[in-house]
């Protein structure tokens, strides 16, 4: 019989389809796991609207749960309850080690452009002389910044 701990461990081995250095558990998208009568229910939340990785994540979870000998029942929560604040501390470290600046914590109030222009740390040299190059990087969840000191572009996970 499969336990919820085994399911969590199996899900923790699934890499994020777009940023494979972190797992979908590190990303904080798996909200709830429930095991009953050979069926594993998983609640998970989309990150950004229209993120193409959603289907890939669902299929990967179904495959892992089937490997455990259980029937998967993956439920996508259709709300916007996921936030970059849900990324685990371990996940943030993995992002930084892979050259992604982790997202800043969510601030109270409306996000304004001026807050994003300056002050983010370069994951390569640690300088805070970085500027925003483009809000949309290779995926909707990442923006592109440029470090004025080591003269390298780098990607930042956007705060939502």
């Amino acid at each position: 019989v499969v336990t919820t701990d085994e399911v969590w461990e199996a899900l923790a081995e699934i890499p994020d389809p777009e940023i494979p250095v972190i797992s979908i558990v590190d990303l904080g998208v798996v909200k709830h796991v429930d095991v009953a009568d050979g069926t594993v229910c998983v609640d998970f939340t989309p990150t950004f609207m229209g993120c193409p990785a959603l289907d890939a994540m669902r299929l990967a979870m179904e495959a892992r749960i089937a490997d455990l000998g259980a029937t998967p029942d993956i439920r996508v929560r259709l709300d916007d309850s996921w936030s970059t604040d849900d990324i685990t501390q371990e996940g943030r470290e993995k992002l930084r080690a892979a050259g992604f600046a982790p997202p800043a914590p969510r601030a109270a109030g409306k996000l304004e452009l001026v807050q994003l222009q300056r002050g983010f740390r370069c994951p390569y040299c640690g300088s805070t002389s970085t500027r925003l190059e483009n809000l949309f990087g290779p995926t909707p969840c990442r923006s592109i910044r440029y470090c004025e000191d080591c003269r390298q572009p780098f990607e930042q996970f956007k705060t939502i």
Partner: protein
Amino acid sequence: MDREEAYHRMHAEMWVDRLLATDEGRTRLEEAVEELWPYALGVLDDALRPELVARAQEKLGRALLDVEPIPRGVHEAELAELWEEMTSVRRSAPAGARW
């Protein structure tokens, strides 16, 4: 979804700032605003229009003409075919491609 939409608004602001930084950019931006303003108003409902007007006027530093919004149209049959074509690669590897 205001959190995520905020990034789209800021992305537009960045482009407007870049265009306003040169004479040629400003001219071309003004021409585009002239042409597309009724459509931009048409994307939003009545409640949201005043904020767009206020933000655009502040950026451009001038009052915008009070034009009638042109509502969004409906997609015609051609879109289905185009959509099929444009999304076929992603659908060909639903669990993620391996290279």
